[in-house]
């Protein structure tokens, strides 16, 4: 729960504060001054500390655990093993499917990946718990592990029929096409690598559980805890006012969460458990490694006749993750014939998870490199190639786009970048010992829609409170909801306080898939509208109100002051009105759900993702779009790639706050640079273990790796996508960056690197 105060110079404030204004993050000062308290910073009486013991094998059985030394170590309160941890119930998955097993043990007897939690130690201090955890001895019966997709034992995997997309006769049309390319593209295991690690503080009071945990989905995680412990949903309270980065990884309650909550219940004391950095690479899934082949057949004039796409992603031995690899392939270009199929292969890893633009990101790497290869096969400019095959409608859903400003994005990006000055031949641009390459690629992300709920309160002093169990992980929810409420109610932003990150507030679904801003601005707009109606109704109807005698139909509120539309008659501040009519507060709860939604449907809407609305529902296909233009410099001796310029033009529809949208886009682009050039979870193939699970060895880009990034908004309001006309922002930016860089590297060097990341040893 948080209150933010923002004061602005009056002259600028109206422009900045309106929806669409470049208001700075209202939570910024609290973060900079340290006043923002993150989940792990709760100071609780009697707090204990838990530390996990991870499996040192990737596959096999735990045959024995010797806890004696740990149990007698100083400060130790409990050593938990699969045999001693309390029994939990199975919990349904995030689609709401009931659990396969009725019980759940978060500590493993059967090890399916290296680092899996097999035991935990709880002690009075963190240091005591760390020391005692090192004393726990575990014996295993090891069996051969399938370490990755290229493991001989991995096989072809399981076909995912729901991912198959077919129209026309793709194989025959490919075979008949006069110009053909076919290539394989691979992306490695990548990690979300948020600065704030995963972890939680759990406290039980009777049958009520409070969990302080960084979370992208309070209601969904609260449901999981409630099911594990067999307590009513209302008994679980999740608190997560600030999140130090999630990127998709913090939406679920995980095994370590269960261990901490169980330990707290067993000990009757609050327990804090924070994963150390290496554990952050093995306790939850990053982006699955993927393999794709893309075959494109075209006419000699460059018109695509057929696309044949096959994809594989890794998943866990005991969990399913599908990274939809055909998602961009099937919509980016017009083609009369298309085929996409996907398998998943079980390997000994933790279940992979969502990382920024799951599916679209690797999918774009395949198709956007392949289209570049086809352009070179035909001797065409890669940008022209894309325009020749521009999809005027959704080729898969066969529906018109709600809005698609991709042509505008290509034009604006090319203009700002100076694309016209490019010479098409590889290795044709250089400066001293640097080969220069210019590459382009497009990206897209579907508009994921759902429903949300918000409470807007007007208080006696005229201030406004917005409450929602949605969260702000840096993307700007606090700010845009303040802007939305302020604009709807006609009050300055400084009068609005937004409270987020508490599951006891009005409900919200998952913050993921770039849906939150669209959902929550809609809900706040609605709740604030209701509050405004009530305020005006009160002003007009209450006999004590000076507006009563006006006999007017309506009133306006501007800058926190109430007046008649024409300005004649009295003018009161909201506080003055509340005072004369003797009201303490006006409360309005608004939601975007259809009127006759049952309580069960409401619950499912907020605690599962089963109820999100398909982006192709109704008459339109809804997506955000972007085009990235990239310049790289490759040292001809060393093979080192430096990104020296990025211009991206993006269509996210209407922007609620361009400053925040730009920083989301840039964050995505920076992550894309890391993905293209640096990031890779490196597996020891003998042990099935990630050997670079730390921030010195898992390479993320530094400031020195990032050039100036120019972003251009080409979006127009899209009324089919959200109440206020916005489309998704957060995921979009990364989609297409890696292929743009790979294409630029080809242009610079004449070498196609189809395996990410593009490290120097692949170019030397």
């Amino acid at each position, binding site marked *: 729960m948080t209150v933010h105060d923002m004061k602005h110079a009056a002259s600028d404030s109206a422009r900045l504060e309106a929806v669409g204004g470049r208001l700075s993050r209202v939570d910024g000062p609290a973060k900079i001054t340290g006043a923002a308290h993150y989940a792990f910073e709760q100071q609780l009486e009697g707090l204990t500390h838990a530390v996990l013991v991870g499996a040192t094998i990737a596959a096999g059985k735990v045959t024995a655990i010797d806890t004696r030394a740990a149990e007698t170590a100083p400060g130790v309160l409990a050593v938990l093993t699969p045999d001693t941890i309390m029994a939990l119930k199975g919990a349904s998955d995030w689609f709401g499917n009931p659990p396969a097993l009725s019980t759940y043990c978060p500590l493993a007897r059967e090890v399916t990946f290296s680092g899996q939690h097999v035991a935990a130690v709880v002690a009075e*201090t963190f240091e005591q718990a760390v020391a005692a955890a090192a004393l726990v001895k575990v014996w295993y019966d090891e069996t051969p592990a399938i370490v990755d997709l290229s493991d001989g034992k991995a096989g072809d995997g399981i076909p995912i029929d729901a991912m198959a997309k077919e129209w026309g006769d793709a194989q025959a049309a490919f075979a008949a096409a006069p110009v053909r390319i076919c290539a394989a593209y691979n992306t490695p295991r990548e990690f979300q690598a948020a600065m704030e690690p995963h972890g939680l503080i759990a406290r039980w009071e009777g049958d009520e559980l409070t969990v302080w945990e960084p979370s992208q989905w309070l209601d969904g995680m609260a449901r999981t805890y409630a099911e594990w412990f067999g307590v009513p949903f209302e008994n679980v309270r999740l608190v997560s006012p600030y999140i130090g980065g999630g990127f998709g990884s913090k939406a679920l309650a995980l095994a370590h969460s269960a261990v901490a909550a169980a330990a707290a219940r067993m000990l009757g004391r609050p327990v804090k458990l924070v994963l150390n950095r290496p554990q952050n690479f093995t306790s939850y899934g990053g982006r699955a490694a993927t393999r794709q082949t893309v075959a494109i057949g075209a006419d000699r004039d460059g018109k695509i006749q057929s696309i044949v796409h096959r994809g594989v992603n890794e998943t866990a031995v005991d969990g399913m993750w599908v990274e939809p690899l055909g998602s961009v392939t099937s919509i980016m270009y017009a083609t009369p014939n298309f085929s996409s199929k996907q398998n998943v292969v079980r390997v000994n890893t933790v279940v992979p998870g969502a990382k920024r633009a799951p599916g679209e990101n690797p999918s774009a790497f395949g198709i956007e490199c392949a289209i570049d290869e086809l352009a070179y096969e035909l001797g065409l400019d890669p940008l022209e190639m894309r325009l020749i095959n521009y999809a005027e409608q959704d080729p898969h859903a066969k529906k018109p786009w709600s809005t698609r400003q991709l042509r505008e994005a290509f034009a604006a990006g090319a203009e700002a970048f100076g694309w016209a000055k490019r010479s098409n031949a590889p290795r044709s641009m250089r400066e001293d010992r640097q080969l220069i390459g210019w590459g382009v690629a497009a990206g897209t992300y579907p508009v994921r829609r759902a429903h949300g709920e918000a409470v807007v309160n007007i208080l006696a002093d005229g201030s406004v409170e917005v409450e929602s169990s949605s969260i702000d992980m840096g993307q700007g929810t606090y700010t845009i909801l303040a802007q939305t409420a302020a604009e709807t109610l006609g009050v300055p932003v400084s009068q609005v306080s937004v409270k987020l990150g508490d599951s006891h507030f009005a409900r919200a679904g998952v913050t993921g898939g770039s849906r939150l801003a669209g959902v929550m601005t809609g809900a706040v707009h609605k709740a604030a509208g209701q509050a405004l109606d009530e305020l005006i109704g009160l002003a007009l109807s209450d006999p004590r109100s000076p507006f009563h005698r006006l006999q007017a139909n309506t009133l306006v509120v501007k800058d926190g002051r109430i007046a008649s539309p024409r300005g004649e008659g009295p003018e009161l501040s909201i506080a003055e009105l509340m005072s004369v009519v003797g009201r303490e507060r006006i409360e309005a709860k608004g939601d975007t759900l259809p009127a006759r939604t049952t309580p069960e449907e409401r619950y499912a809407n907020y605690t599962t993702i089963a109820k999100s609305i398909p982006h192709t529902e109704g008459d339109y296909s809804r997506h955000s779009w972007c085009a990235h233009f990239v310049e790289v410099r490759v040292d001809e001796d060393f093979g080192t790639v430096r990104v020296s310029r990025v211009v991206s033009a993006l269509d996210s529809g209407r922007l609620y706050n361009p400053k925040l949208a730009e920083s989301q886009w840039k964050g995505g682009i920076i992550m894309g640079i890391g993905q293209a050039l640096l990031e890779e979870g490196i597996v020891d193939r003998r042990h099935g273990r990630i050997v670079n699970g730390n921030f010195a060895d898992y390479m993320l880009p530094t400031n020195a790796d990032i050039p100036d990034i120019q972003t251009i908004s080409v979006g127009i309001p899209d009324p089919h996508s959200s109440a206020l006309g916005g489309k998704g922002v957060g995921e979009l930016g990364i989609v297409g960056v890696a292929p743009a860089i790979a294409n630029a590297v080809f242009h610079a060097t004449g070498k196609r690197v189809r395996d990410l990341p593009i490290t120097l040893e692949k170019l030397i």
Partner: protein
Amino acid sequence: MRDFSYLRADSIEAARNAAALPGAMLLAGGTTLIDLAKCGVAEPATVIDISHIEGLNAVDVTADRALIGALAKMSHVADHAEVKSLFPAVSEALWQAASAQLRNMATIGGNLMQRTRCPYFRDPANFPACNKRSPGSGCSAIGGVTLGHAVLGTSEACIATYPGDLAVALVAFDAEVDLGERKLKVEDFFLAPGATAEQEHDIRPGEVITAIEIPGSAAARRSTYLKVRDRQSYEFAAASAAVGLELEGDGRTIRDIRVALGGVATKPWRARAVEEALKGKALDEATIREASELAMEGAVDHGANHYKIALAPRVIARAILKLGETA
């Protein structure tokens, strides 16, 4: 809790006495020691904090020599005006090392004593076999992920790369390390693994590094440190070279040249064959590139690190060419 005793040494003598205790380890900036303690690699019985000893952080540079106290911070030496003008390779090696935060903490003495980044060395819980950590236990790296491992100076016992930058420049310019009773060439202070991978330095119980001394020379004055890596900052070298050059009066014949390599060998590696091949030769790109290849004589790869054999000579050549351009 994993208990250890903490002693604060106020003088070099006190530090030396304490350092002779079994299981004693010195603490300077702590950026290596605390890191390794967290990994479970360093388990000191006694931590001797030397960071408060006075007078050990002086940096004194004349045309003849640079004298750098063991407690001088990396960032301070990197920014030192005379180090920059008289020993540019030393300054460049330092500012390209680690991150700004680490350089502000880390000391020159500690820097010489940093340990390898071999991932197997740093993860005892998962990889018990490591000859460097526990002699005779084997080497987990051989047959595993060897992308960063050495191609020069390896043995069957250990193929771990010496990761540091500064010592590469020190070796190129014949620097000495002052251990009080003894003074050693930095080149001899570092030991290749051979059959005793656990011995990385010629330092005895009770010895403390007090200073390093770098002789001045024309080659040191015209020197550079070139570090190649995928990430532009905050990454250890895929390959690096410290090079110094002195030309004859004609401006193109090489009178003196120093070449040392980092990121590819088990210790900071002086490439004397390259130096000998180039002395008296003209500063010409083809000649330089050919001579640079000599640095890789005897190189052995372990699969994934093969690229280093191609990369390192190019780094040497480019460093020399860069110096040639800056007359």
